[in-house]
């Protein structure tokens, strides 16, 4: 075991997978010599050379499209999109191609590509370096979307994504990169995609979230246990599409009081689907309306610190929502 930051865990996952399997390669903007603008690919260019860590021209649709082609050949590409916000030029390749390739070829062809992209706010990134992009893709059967909430999860989930026979969008919270650190096993740990993770058992309220927000929820759950004797049941979605319905239903039933948290805009977010699943399956187990805590429905968080703070879901807002629900 050694203590790794979230981004070190990601770097290590790629390094290990590239050592394990020659077919794995990386392509993206500035991933080579520069080692990535966040340094997620630090050292990999030196270790694996420019043929396996490819600095591409500035063109996201080609990064994904070329990756899909290489994957069809039998390679295992890891495509880095520099900021999740800049995945949009590649949407056609992701939704029309990667997601539908297996289905449209009647299971003949497949596209085992992993697309990594840093998402999320609270880093003075302004409108276009702060967004949560998962909801745009979270209605496309054939795709999987993974969003880790801790270094250990980041490593185990990324390794599983790289080995997954289908396309995976892997969104990493850029504020988590250096903020989160924890012990990460040195073994070849794979964390299953498609399964939610019960991170804390509790009996008063259920909180369901993912990514950086889940980390905050965990911290607050511990605070509330000692400060207010509120016992919180916490479910980490880990895979936000397709959702782990059974785990969601069980977690909701556990306490009958559910709070869902995302840092994305509220309307049309991942937690809307989570709520709909609960409303469909657990209506008579609920003791309170299903609460959603999310960013406001304005396009994205502005640059000015006043506005960024107002937009961003933070620990204070989450704590208040949890207390309110417990008191309901």
């Amino acid at each position, binding site marked *: 075991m050694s203590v790794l930051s979230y981004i070190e865990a990601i770097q290590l996952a790629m390094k290990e997978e590239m050592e394990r399997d020659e077919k794995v390669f990386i392509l993206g903007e500035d991933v080579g010599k520069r080692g990535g603008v966040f340094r997620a690919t630090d050292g990999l260019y030196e270790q694996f050379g420019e043929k396996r860590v490819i600095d591409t021209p500035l*063109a996201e649709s080609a990064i994904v499209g*070329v990756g899909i082609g290489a994957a*069809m050949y039998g390679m295992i590409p890891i495509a880095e999109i520099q900021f999740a916000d800049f995945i949009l030029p590649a949407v056609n*390749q992701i939704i029309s191609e990667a997601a539908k390739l297996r289905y449209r070829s009647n299971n003949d062809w497949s596209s085992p590509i992993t697309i990594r992209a840093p998402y999320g706010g609270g880093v003075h990134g302004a409108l276009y370096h702060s967004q949560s992009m998962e909801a745009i893709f979270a209605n496309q*059967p054939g795709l999987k979307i993974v969003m880790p909430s801790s270094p250990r999860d980041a490593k185990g989930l990324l390794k599983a994504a790289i080995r997954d026979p289908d396309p995976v969008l892997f969104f990493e919270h850029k504020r988590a990169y250096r903020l989160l650190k924890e012990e990460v096993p040195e073994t070849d740990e794979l964390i299953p995609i498609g399964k939610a993770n019960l991170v804390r058992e509790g009996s008063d309220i259920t909180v369901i979230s993912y990514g950086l927000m889940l980390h905050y929820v965990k911290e607050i759950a511990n605070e509330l246990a000692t400060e207010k004797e509120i016992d919180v049941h916490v479910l980490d979605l880990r895979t936000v599409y397709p959702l782990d319905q059974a785990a969601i239903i069980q977690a909701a039933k556990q306490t009958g009081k559910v709070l869902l948290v995302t840092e994305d805009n509220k309307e049309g977010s991942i937690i809307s689907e989570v709520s709909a699943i609960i409303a469909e399956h657990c209506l008579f187990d609920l003791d309170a309306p299903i609460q959603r805590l999310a960013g406001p429905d304005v396009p994205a968080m502005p640059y000015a610190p006043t506005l960024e703070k107002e937009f961003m879901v933070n620990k204070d807002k989450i704590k208040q929502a949890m207390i309110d629900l417990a008191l309901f």
Partner: protein
Amino acid sequence: MINHEDLQLTDDDVLEMYRLMLTARRFDERTWLLNRAGKIPFLVSCQGQEAQQVGAAYALDRERDYTAPYYRDFGVVLALGMTVKDLMMQAFAKAADPNSGGRQMPGHFGSKRLRMLSGSSPVTTQVPHAVGVGLACQMNNDQAISFVTLGEGSTNQGDFHEGANFAAVHKLPVIIMVENNQYAISVPLNKQVACEKISDRAIGYGMYGETIDGNNPLAVYQAIKKARDRALKGEGPSLIEAVSYRLTAHSSDDDDMTYRTQEEIDQAKEQDGLHTFRQYLVKKNILTDQIESEMEAAIKAEINQATEAAEKAPYPSVETLYDGVYQ
């Protein structure tokens, strides 16, 4: 006209090329009949482009190379090993369609066995895919190349630009063949582009570019053969524009009389590669009356059998709807 002997093609080769072109044409004609008879809901036509399709496919190493054909490429896929029966299964959306098991429309080709990438409907997405295959060939020192086609209208999509540029920067073994049939549905060439030749775009990518007579299968064969040699020698990708004319409406849903004239079509028919190549073969005494009538009869029989088989074949069964979303 170029002489096939100069290209090291035998008489049998050119006869086989003609047979493939004719098969594509006759298959296409049959699907129009089937469509008008209400037996198949949709078709997209290859008429006028058979010469470039067969000429190009013939220049590939059909045991090694990868292809990403576009929806009109009946000539390409027949040359690569798709059968008339396969294509008829596709036309009827039957479970036995090897391209998609009846999931996709006609003209949406794909077969892993034939190293033919599965295609979709949004145009031009196949260009980056073919480039990715070229990249993989290069990485693996695979002595294969990646061949991709698209219409001239489709060269205006961003994916053409991004894919071509990527291939050029990495000097990948890729051939992009533009089948310029003068129209993007109703939009004529001069409303699609202002450049003189589509192949001029190659200059802006720093790759080899050439425009050839797409009605002449030998010219296309020659150009693609050379492009393939360059690709294998590490000299990078090529952009080949083959010029012809779309002789039918865009698809069975289109009415081309709303935007062009019969005179224009009639004039284009005089250049139809199927006929000019036929004349070439007749003049060379390779295609005799007897060979021709036997060939026509054999093709007709094959199409008849395929139609019958496809009509009888089962649709994919309802439960299969849920298969193949993920592995």
